[in-house]
């Protein structure tokens, strides 16, 4: 490649922090520019609803890499600017300040943004979403012992936030619109487990309830629900999912299908434009379908694939998705995707203890594992999913039997 080749990375995300140094390691000698609409170097997002919110980690401690790494790799970083358009015919990224940046390779690591809800009072002071560092910084200013927090949305973000706010001594209520928390992502058994734990920790979880308005004079004071109930609040945090940032790609005519469509080499429908992370939709050979993942693992792995592709090393992306969620003393590790499961096998005392594994099965094969404080079930579970063998459910449920013994060598 020519030394003057230019690579632009749009979005200073997990994927970007992986991509830029990997490009250098793979021998990219051209320029690398990272463009961000935030004002921070790429940081770990998961701690925003955990250690950062609870105050046990600072903004500096959640940086993915220190500033020195980017200067060492000669990565130019422009913060606080938003991209307006991609001009594919002239191979330029147009910024909202009027600048036009030439690229040879453009990588979209634009991530996702929060899904907003449209109810009266949602713009009141003290009402927040949680996605980026700025959100978390604002939220922290409203936290404090004995203050009341209402969280709208009983997904992982909502529940992790509840856990962090309880650590700070706040009174926390979680409102979930569906009949149970974690409805979209876990089995009823696992949801019941988390409901019990949060109750034991003093969090009030109310399911099957729709927040219809938020009220307060200047600042939030309460949340009203469809059934006439009302919850007092000093702060409201809304966590009802995310939407991939695909608009720029779509306007540029790239193929979109629940995310920016990329091939196994992280290339979009334009070979000079690649994409990685939450904003993409890719074909996963293990589950044999297109996936759009909201996951650190996917962001890092796909970014590495993209860097390799740009440097001419075509390495197809094929990874088992995995996720984690920390709440209280519980470390949940999730291997694989459970969608389409027909049976759940539980190992351990899910009703009384703080440690279990739930195996999601289809036609006798393991699709996914939710492991709480069970690292071995998670680690060997990953391998069992990859092996794809028929498994005996009695053995999976038998806590005296190491999962290792079920692996075929």
């Amino acid at each position, binding site marked *: 490649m020519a030394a003057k080749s230019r690579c632009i990375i749009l979005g200073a995300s997990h994927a970007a922090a992986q991509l830029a140094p990997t490009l250098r*390691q793979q021998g990219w000698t051209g320029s690398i520019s990272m463009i961000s609409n935030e004002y921070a170097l790429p940081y770990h997002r998961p701690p925003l609803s955990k250690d950062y919110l609870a105050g046990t980690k600072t903004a500096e401690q959640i940086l*993915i*890499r220190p500033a020195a*790494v980017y200067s060492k790799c000669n990565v130019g970083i422009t913060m606080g600017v938003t991209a307006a358009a991609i001009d594919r015919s002239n191979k330029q990224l147009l910024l909202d300040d009027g600048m036009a940046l030439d690229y040879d390779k453009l990588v979209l690591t634009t991530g996702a943004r929060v899904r907003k809800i449209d109810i009266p009072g949602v713009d009141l002071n003290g009402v927040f979403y949680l996605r980026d560092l700025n959100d978390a910084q604002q939220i922290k200013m409203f936290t404090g012992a004995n203050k009341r927090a209402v969280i709208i949305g009983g997904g992982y973000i909502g529940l992790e936030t509840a856990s962090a706010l309880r650590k700070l001594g706040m009174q926390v209520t979680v409102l979930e619109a569906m009949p149970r928390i974690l409805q979209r992502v876990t089995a009823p058994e696992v949801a019941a487990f988390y409901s019990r734990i949060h109750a034991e920790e003093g969090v009030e979880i109310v399911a099957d309830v729709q927040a219809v308005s938020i009220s307060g004079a200047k600042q939030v004071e309460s949340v009203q629900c469809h059934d006439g109930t009302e919850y007092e609040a000093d702060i409201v945090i809304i966590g009802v999912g995310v939407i991939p940032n695909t608009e720029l790609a779509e306007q540029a005519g790239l193929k979109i299908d629940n995310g920016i469509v990329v091939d196994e080499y992280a290339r979009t429908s334009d070979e000079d434009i690649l994409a990685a992370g939450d904003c993409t939709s890719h074909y996963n050979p293990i589950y044999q379908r297109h996936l759009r993942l909201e996951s*650190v693992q996917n962001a890092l792995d796909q970014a590495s694939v993209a860097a390799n592709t740009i440097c001419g090393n075509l390495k197809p992306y094929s990874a088992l998705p995995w996720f*984690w969620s920390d709440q209280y003393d519980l*470390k949940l590790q999730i291997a694989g995707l459970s969608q389409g499961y027909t049976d759940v096998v539980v190992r351990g005392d899910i009703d009384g203890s703080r440690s279990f594994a739930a195996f999601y099965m289809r036609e006798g094969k393991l699709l996914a594992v939710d492991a709480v404080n069970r*690292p*071995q079930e998670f680690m060997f579970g990953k391998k069992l999913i990859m092996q794809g063998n028929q498994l005996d459910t009695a053995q999976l449920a038998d806590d005296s039997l190491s999962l290792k013994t079920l692996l075929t060598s």
Partner: protein
Amino acid sequence: MPRVTYIQADGQSQEVNLEAGSSLMQGAVDNMIDGIVAECGGSCSCATCHCYIDADWIDRVEPAEEMETDLLDCVSEPKDNSRLSCQVKVSDDLDGLVVHLPTTQF
């Protein structure tokens, strides 16, 4: 700043200075040392930052907690001196520490 040597499975080594209090994993990531993947960013969740503490140093490193030892049972090629590098904090007492990296994190 404690000095740490990371030695790859193929014998290549890199010496770097780490901030006291940072982890061996962060030190590897900050210095772009191959062989440490660290998918979870240091929350003891993924076991992709596996390393071996050099035999001369193993007794001077704080022992692993249960979560970590459980994960270490599942890595490729576990040994008595296996550790997850995200859980090993460096201090001035560990100046000169030598760390060996495995052939694979998966």
